[in-house]
């Protein structure tokens, strides 16, 4: 199939096809995720839960030199990467995360990203033995933790 695309299309077609995918991804996945995240943060702000969550997670997030509220990004990321990114963007927009915070969080969002969803889509599809699931999730968490610790010194 790759061969076929090559004989039929030009380099311009390739770019346009990629850009079209980007448009679809943006409209169908990015926008709904960002909207969800902004609405959720708005609710947290209106209820005053932002301050409480910030204080509760402050000791843990402090290890990565992140404010406590950054925990909401990681929790959302565990469920969906788009959600995690959306929460991060929303917190940045309202001034609760800095540029450095965002940079530290990104590898964490990816490495932890959608662990729940990918359990079915990757581990299920590839038929990995079920009793390995806990250790595989643990490795995701270890990866994210170490990566964010490293980013703390790079960012």
């Amino acid at each position, binding site marked *: 199939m790759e061969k076929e695309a090559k004989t039929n299309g030009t380099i311009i077609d390739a*770019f346009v096809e990629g850009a079209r995918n980007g448009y679809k991804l943006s409209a169908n996945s990015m926008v709904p995720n*960002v909207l969800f995240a902004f*609405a959720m943060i*708005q609710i947290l702000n209106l209820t005053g839960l932002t301050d409480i969550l910030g204080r509760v997670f402050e000791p843990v997030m402090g290890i990565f030199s992140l404010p406590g509220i950054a925990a909401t990004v990681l929790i959302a990321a565990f469920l969906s990467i788009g959600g995690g990114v959306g929460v991060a963007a929303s917190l940045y927009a309202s001034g609760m995360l800095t540029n450095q915070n965002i940079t530290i969080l990104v*590898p964490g969002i*990816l490495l932890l990203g959608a662990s729940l969803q990918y359990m079915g*889509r990757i581990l299920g599809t*590839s038929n990995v033995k079920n009793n390995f699931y806990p250790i595989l999730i643990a490795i995701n968490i270890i990866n994210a933790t170490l990566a964010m610790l490293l980013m703390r010194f790079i960012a």
Partner: protein
Amino acid sequence: MNDNKLYQLDVHVRWYGYIALIVAILFFSGIFQSAEGPIRALDFTNVLGGFGKLGSLTEGAGTLANDFRGTGGSGGKDAWLFALTIFPAVMLALGVVKVVEYLDGLKAAQKLLTPILMPLMGIPGLCGLTLIASLQSADAGASMLNELSNSSLINDRQKTIFACFQYSAGATLTNYLSSCAVLFPFFSITIITPLVVVFAFKIFGANLMRLYLTKVYKGEL
């Protein structure tokens, strides 16, 4: 008779259905719109938020916002304009990736990766194509891995290690260039650095799994 039965008996409502309905009515009713305290969050208009202000210009003075999103927006409305500002970045990034693919760039990556897969993660070189695919699509990577295993090209131990590599930061490239593109403008370092870090830890994680299978795990594979 039968029709009546259908309308009366077949509706089973779980208990929280009634709570959801009451909350929804309150949410859309607007009675909490100008309430004090946390209850404000139970209002559609408040969660919808507002668009940012563009600023104003009077003669020779005043400031304008950087883009059409404005400043000081919040909630769903701000989310919409913010999301619109990201479209070009995602489209350009995925367009360029397609061009790289068209120019055999991804095949080149596969070729370069193949000889180092065994020392790097203990999986054979023939996993190169699957590895490249898994960076673009979680589903493609996983189904190709299953295929490799079904046709006995790799054993269960290698499959588990490779699945571990794919599972942490699945579809790395696509997720980074589409979802994470939202955050690119806010980075304090170059865009490529976090990606390199993620890739390094994917390999690190696979080796943790490799170690676990060698040293700890005693069961059957």
